[in-house]
Every structure is written in structure tokens, then in C-alpha cells.
């Protein structure tokens, strides 16, 4: 019974909050699943609180979280691309001055 109500709480959208700046980002669940860390957090079977509340806090600046969300959306869009489709290069959308912080965030989130 408890499982039913937990499943019912699973919505299509999840919220990622930047702990440092307080900004929150609402993204579709599929997009968030592109990150290994978020996938495990939001997995209802894993028993984490985030799974029931569909919210996850991340200890990064908002700019970094935003860029990661942008990447996850890009990844979700082009993940099923056929062999002939041209995937635009995301790398040129990363400004170098956030590259180091973004690397640490990407490593933590398994993106």
C-alpha cells in the first residue's frame, strides 16, 4: 500500500535545487535520468527521501547547475539520434571560465 502511494507521487517533473544560491530548476524526469547520481536519487526503490519528494539538492552554484541541466536536456534530445543525424557540439556552449567547476559537478553527478 505504501508503495502505491509512493508511485502515485512520482510526477513527470523533478526539481533540482542549487543549495548555494537557492535557485531551483524544474526538468522532466527523463532528462534528469541522464545523470547517474540523479537517477539513483529519484529511484523510488532506493529509499532515498528524494524519491518521494521529487526534489534533490545539489551543492553547486546555480550557473553550474544550469549548465548541467542544459547538457542533460541536450543529451536526452540526441540520445536516440540515428547514425546519420548531425548532433550539434555541446562543447562550444561551455564557457571556459566555468570549465573546472563544471568538471567537478559533472563528475559528482555522473553526467
Amino acid at each position, binding site marked *: 500500500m505504501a508503495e502505491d502511494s509512493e508511485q502515485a507521487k512520482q510526477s513527470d517533473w523533478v526539481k533540482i535545487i542549487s543549495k548555494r544560491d537557492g535557485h531551483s530548476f524544474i526538468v522532466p524526469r527523463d532528462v534528469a535520468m541522464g545523470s547517474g547520481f540523479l*537517477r*539513483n536519487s529519484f*529511484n523510488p*526503490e*532506493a*529509499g532515498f527521501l528524494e524519491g518521494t519528494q521529487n526534489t534533490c539538492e545539489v551543492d553547486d552554484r546555480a550557473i553550474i547547475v544550469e549548465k*548541467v541541466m542544459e*547538457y542533460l536536456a*541536450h*543529451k536526452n534530445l*540526441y*540520445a536516440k*539520434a*540515428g*547514425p*546519420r543525424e548531425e*548532433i550539434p557540439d*555541446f*562543447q562550444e556552449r*561551455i564557457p*571556459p*571560465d*566555468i*570549465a*573546472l*567547476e*563544471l*568538471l*567537478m559537478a*559533472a*563528475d559528482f553527478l555522473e*553526467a
Partner: protein
Amino acid sequence: MSSATGKAPPIGTFHECAQCQKKFTVTKYTISNDSGFLCHPCAKSSGENPFKKPAPRKRKPAAEKRTVKNFEEVEPVKTLTGMCISIIGSYIDQVEELGDVGAVNMDKICRIVSKSRNLNEHNVRLFYDVTNTSLVIYDSTNLKSPAFSAMSALNPNLQRLTLHMCGQMESTVLDDWSKSFKNLTRLELHAPFLVREPAWINFIRAKGPQLTGFLITNSPRFTQECLDTLVESAPDLNELRLAEFTKMNDSWLEGIAQFTSLTSLDLSSDRSSRISLTSQPVIELLKSVGRNLALLRLDANEELDDTMLLDGVALHCTALETLSMSLLPALTDEGVAKFFDKLPLTNELTCVNFSRCHEVSSLALRAILKHSRATLQSLNINGCKEVDEDALNLIGEAAPRLTELDVGWCRNVNDLVIGSILLPKRGMTELKTINCFGCNRITQNCPKKAGVTIIGVETDISRQRL
């Protein structure tokens, strides 16, 4: 041909030609016209070619028997980590463009780049600095000798250098290093197996006097002569590690005994060579150097037995903090228990490792907890499979300062044991990690606690999308 085709009379019989009324033999090429069957000459004169084959039946084009899948390399979307590393690589020479490098933990960046095996001689320069006093490279696999030599030119003031996986490092590197690295005091190399004996000797002679730490793992070319040079040039060495040296044997211990200022000694073995140190020579060694040792590691020297502990460590070590005696199958439960009863309490052990000593069991565990209850922070009894539940239940109570626990493959660990460790009667613990691989009595009802990582619970496998 069957007789009753309905049209022609049986082959071989005579028939009258419909045109010239002559008798002829019916063959399978006999053609008829409206009035009857014609003989061969009449058939030819009427224009019809009796030998003409019937028009071929139109067939359906042969269906493709093989479905060839056109296998094209689908380039998946690149990982964000990979892309960031590429960007960093391209901005090496304009590091200021990468933002405030001071705010970022460069060691963490080095770990991340190493973890994805992307560290190469180009982006390693990100971690170089003239003011560096300490440098750790976690994966030097892609660095070749010239890159290692350049390291000393670009980090001239290094005091502490640690390089993991330096398999491509050759003798020339040590030759170059012996002329630079003016301030080097501690050198830690993992797997410099290409470096040859003369290079070792040369380097040790040049740098020995200034070294306080010499930690090498996995070098099959390091000989006893190299060791003798080390004894000569660096008699006041504090930290010594000669681990996984295939040439090492008991006769080396006499030389090592001369390092009387040692605080850290690691002589773990490389099991592949099947050469192990034996107890008596180790006891003699400890007589000489045991006094000041804070760290002692003798893993995988399979011939060491209880006497080494009882007559060696217990009698001669007074300042131990880390004791690692893993993979010593000759140790017995009673022996280890007696050892801990005998070991002076001035040895305030924070880290104890008896993993994969299969005989070690409940008596030993109780003795460990009794001796080190106040100080123990890390306990590893992975593989001590017979330890019973009662002894395991003591851990939570007995060791309040424990942060790391490895009870992998201890078959008697179950949910209740984990519960007793996480929630001891006296209150909170400082525990951060529990490793319980191979404990199949733990179920999905295993208790959890915020801030504690439990790895190895089998029922979690289903949750991991492997």
C-alpha cells in the same frame, strides 16, 4: 513422361501428321496446331520452332536471404566530464581563462582527470607550478619518460612527489631527477618497473642524503645492491616502503635493520614470486627498528606466523598506530588473540587490518577490541569468515571512534549486527563506511542511517542498473 497429358499421344507411338498425313514418331517436341499434331518438317515450315523452350515463368525476385544490418558507428553524445576535460586541455596555456583556479581544488581535478584515464602529458601541465611543494598524479600511464623528466624542470621546488602507475618511466628519468629536485624529501612511486639497477643506484647516491621517505611499489629490478646503497646514503630514513619487490627476501632484512629511525615500514609482498619473508628474520629486524614504528605493514608474506607477532611486534613495538597483517594464512585465532593481549597499550592503534587471514576469528576480534577500543578508527576483517555473531555485536559498543569498518565475507554478519553497529546502546557513532560484501545474511531490511555508506549489500544489486 506420363502418358495422360491430355494433349499429345504417348511418346514413341506413331501418329499421323495433321498436315501431310505422313506417319511420324511422337516425341516430346511434337507440336500441335488447330487440326492435330504435326510431324517435324511441317512443324518447322509452319514457323514454330519445336525446340523452343516455353517462356520462362516469371519468378518473384529472390527475397534477400541475409538481412545485413548496416552497422555504422553511432557516436553517442559525449559525456559532460569528457567535454570539460577537453576544454581544459585546450586552455592549458591560458589558464587564467579557466576562471579562479584558486577556488577549485586542483587535487580533486587531478583525481577526476585520472579517473577517466584522460591525463596525458599535455593536460598534466595544469597541475604543475613553480611554487608546488607537493604533487600527486593518480594515473601516470600516459606519461612517457620525457614528460617525467620535464616534471622536475617545471616543478623544481617539489618536496613530496607521488606518482601512481608510472609504468612508462625509464632509467633516464631518474638520471635527470638526480640532477634536479633540490628540495625533494619524499618520493613515492608505484610501478616504475622499467627503471634499471644502475639508475636506482645513481639516484639513491645523489638524492639519498636529503630523502626522508622512499616508497616504491612493484619494481622487479631493484636489487639488494640498490638497498645497500640506500642504507649507505640515507641512514636516517623515516619512511620506507619496498612493496611487491620480486627480488626481496630474508637476506635484505639485515640491511633494513640499519634504518633505526624508521617510523613507517611497509614490506608487503608480491605473491606471484612465491618468495616470502619468514618470521625469525623479521623478529630480528623488529628488534632493531620496532621501537619507533608507527606504521607496520607486512601483507601477503605468506610464511609469517604467530611467532612473528608474539616475539617480534609485541615485544619490540611501542608506538604503533597502523598495523596491517593482511593475507597471512598462517596466523591463528588464538595466536592473534594472545598477541593483542600481550601488545603494550602504548601502541595506540587507529588502523588494524587482518583481512584475508582465514583463521582469524572471534577470539582475535575480541582481543582487538579490548586492546584498542579507545583509539580504533579503521578496522578491516574482510575474509575472516568464521567470526561469530556475538563478537561482531561487540564492535558497535566497543569502538566509539570507529569511522571505517570492513566486514566483507564474514558470514555471520546479518541485519542485527549492522543494526548494533549503527545504533550502539551508548549513543551515536562516528562511523562513515561499512563494507559488507559477501554477507548473504543481510537482507533488504538492513538498517540504514543518514551519513553512513553501506556498500556490498546483495539486495542492492537489483537497484543498480548495471
